[in-house]
């Protein structure tokens, strides 16, 4: 008998964790999400972990993730944390609804939701399952396929995460700030939030979702976020990935857009050892607008993979995509931007741009625009550039007495400018810049 491959061994480990996990659910076991969990488990059995042979994963080797057997958070001792730790990770200087998760599980003590417009349900999925089972049944897992083993595992372990339901015509003015604190000092933990956002017709909301690390122990964040936008609904979603240096981060965000809806997604990635982001939107109704912005900063041996998929399924929609990468040391980046224009999606206007700057001779980016166009009356533009910091600009700053290191930071800021400037909450722009420079500061220390 041949021995199991690492992939098979890992799959076996995670499958063996499903029963103990379900045992642990008690009263949450036989709710309306039971059938989704069962479907997820079925998929887990069918699928394998992706390898470099899979077209969608050809630049991202996940074998470092499979070196560890991560324990589902529900089966581990709770990781202690406090207000002080939470405050350290929050964006400040504006009003927001605060919702905190520790290893994917809602923490009510650390959260403060505040007042919401009538009819709006916000908080955690576990509560929504009990309070609004009809909504959960109608929308959960409805427009997201479990594309790979990670997604299926998240589905099989559906339990908690962020949940938002905004009824027709309601506007939530204050942003939601979600803080996902991950990591456990005593065990290598698996955190699997399942987030569900449902916005009714002509409603609007803003969400900042920050994934941040606690401590230096390895952990795996495996996230699925599902977003449903009703007609003319408007959502700004800021995803900030600042997991700790030994962490792994696998994320899938799937949006569904009805007629006239506007979805703006900002992906800001700093942390983790390996991060994979799948950000997808289906433009199902006519006259939709989809904006995907991204900035990713990597150093040392980090690996950040951004996959986006804009699916133009209806006529007269606009999509606008701008991703920028800043890569240092031996880090690697991947950008794969897929745009599909289906046969009926006439008058589509799709724009995509990926720009990368390599700060060292050993950093690397694989960038791939992927356009599939089946309609004839469309406008699609795409472009990718890879380069170094501009030498003339660097000399210009140095000729003013500014050290080469500070000059580089300034040019990096200039490079990231248009993405950060598109952020619609002015208070967090400067804080994102600060995060960029904190990341750089680490690099300066290392080079000494």
């Amino acid at each position, binding site marked *: 008998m041949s021995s199991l491959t690492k992939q098979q061994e890992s799959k076996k480990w995670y499958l063996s964790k499903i029963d103990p996990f379900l045992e642990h659910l008690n009263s949450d076991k036989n709710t309306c999400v039971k059938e989704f969990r069962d479907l997820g488990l079925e998929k887990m059995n069918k699928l394998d972990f992706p390898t470099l042979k899979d077209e969608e994963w050809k630049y991202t080797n996940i074998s470092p993730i499979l070196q560890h057997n991560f324990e589902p958070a529900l089966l581990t001792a709770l990781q202690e944390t406090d207000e002080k730790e939470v405050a350290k990770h929050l964006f400040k200087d504006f009003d927001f609804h605060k919702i905190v998760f520790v290893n994917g599980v809602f923490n009510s003590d650390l959260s403060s939701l505040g007042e919401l417009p009538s009819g709006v349900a916000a908080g955690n999925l576990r509560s929504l399952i009990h309070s609004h089972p009809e909504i959960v049944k109608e929308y959960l897992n409805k427009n997201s396929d479990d594309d790979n083993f990670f997604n299926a595992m998240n589905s099989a372990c559906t339990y908690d995460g962020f949940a938002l339901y905004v009824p027709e015509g309601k506007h939530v003015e204050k942003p939601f700030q979600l803080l996902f604190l991950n990591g456990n000092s005593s065990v290598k933990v698996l955190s699997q939030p399942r987030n569900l956002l449902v916005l009714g017709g002509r409603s609007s909301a803003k969400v900042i979702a920050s994934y941040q690390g606690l401590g230096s122990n390895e952990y795996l964040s495996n996230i699925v976020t599902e977003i449903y936008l009703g007609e003319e609904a408007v959502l700004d979603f800021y995803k900030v990935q600042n997991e700790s240096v030994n962490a792994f981060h696998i994320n899938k965000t799937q949006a569904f857009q009805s007629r006239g809806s506007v979805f703006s997604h900002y992906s800001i990635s700093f942390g983790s050892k390996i991060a994979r982001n799948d950000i997808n939107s289906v433009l199902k109704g006519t006259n939709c607008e989809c904006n995907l912005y991204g900035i990713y900063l990597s150093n040392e041996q980090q690996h950040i993979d951004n996959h986006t998929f804009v699916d133009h399924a209806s006529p007269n929609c606009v999509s606008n995509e701008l991703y920028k990468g800043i890569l240092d040391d031996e880090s690697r980046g991947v950008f794969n931007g897929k745009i599909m224009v289906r046969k009926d999606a006439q008058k589509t206007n799709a724009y995509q741009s990926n720009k990368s700057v390599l700060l060292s001779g050993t950093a690397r980016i694989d960038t791939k625009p992927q356009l599939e166009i089946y309609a004839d009356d469309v406008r699609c533009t795409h472009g990718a550039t890879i380069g170094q910091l*501009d*030498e*003339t*600009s660097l*000399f*210009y*700053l*140095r*000729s*003013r*007495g*500014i*050290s*080469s290191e*500070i000059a580089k930071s*300034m*040019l990096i*800021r*200039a490079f*990231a*400018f*248009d993405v*950060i*400037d598109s952020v619609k909450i002015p208070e967090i722009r400067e804080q994102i810049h600060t995060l960029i420079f904190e990341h750089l500061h680490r690099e300066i220390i290392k080079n000494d």
Partner: protein
Amino acid sequence: MLKIVNLHAEVEGKPILKGINLEINKGEVHAIMGPNGSGKSTLANVLSGNENYQVTEGEIWYEGHNMLDLSPEDRAREGVFLAFQYPVEIPGISNATLLKTAINEIRKHNGMDDISPKDFLAKMREKGQILGMNDLLINRSVNSGFSGGEKKRNEILQLLMLEPKLALLDETDSGLDIDALKIVSTGVNSFRSSENAVLLVTHYQRLLNYIVPDFVHVLSNGKILKSGGKELALKLEDQGYDWINKAELETESV
């Protein structure tokens, strides 16, 4: 202040400067004139430490330092300033941020504390006023979306804010209409003192009506062929550069 001895420099292996000798004392304004391709901009760039230009022979002494040992930032901290012919756009960095950073780097080098925000703002307003630049322009990103004239004015604002000892002006007049030229000149003239010096590089005599030089040098094919007072500039305006090139040919044939 500055002494250049037999300076040879090249760009990408192509010799441009072929033996420059020049001495500048404090309180003086020197104009370097010459046809396109004569090496004017190369001289300004070599002096400020642009690493795209290689010095192959000769010496540059500045305030007792061997200038060739200094990085561009150290030259700036020691008081050298280059107003660029083509100022660079830096979106996302405001003029104020750039200037505050630069001023503090220079102060740190000279053992001084950071400038206070109040003093900085007051200085910025004062210098901005000389150049007719309002707060709006000052708070905009460095040269980002500026017109050609605004960029040149911004270079002079930096000159006035950083208060160098040696100002190198590389074709600061190019692309300016007469009004902008007057403003820029007013700025430079307000900078002039008995303690500093200006080296300006220009193709046209026009600028010298407003910034009157003490010395004019004619650069051609990488060498200073003729030096004189401000009247030399007028002769060049009248007769062009041809008579000098002829003179050069004659010299070479001897």
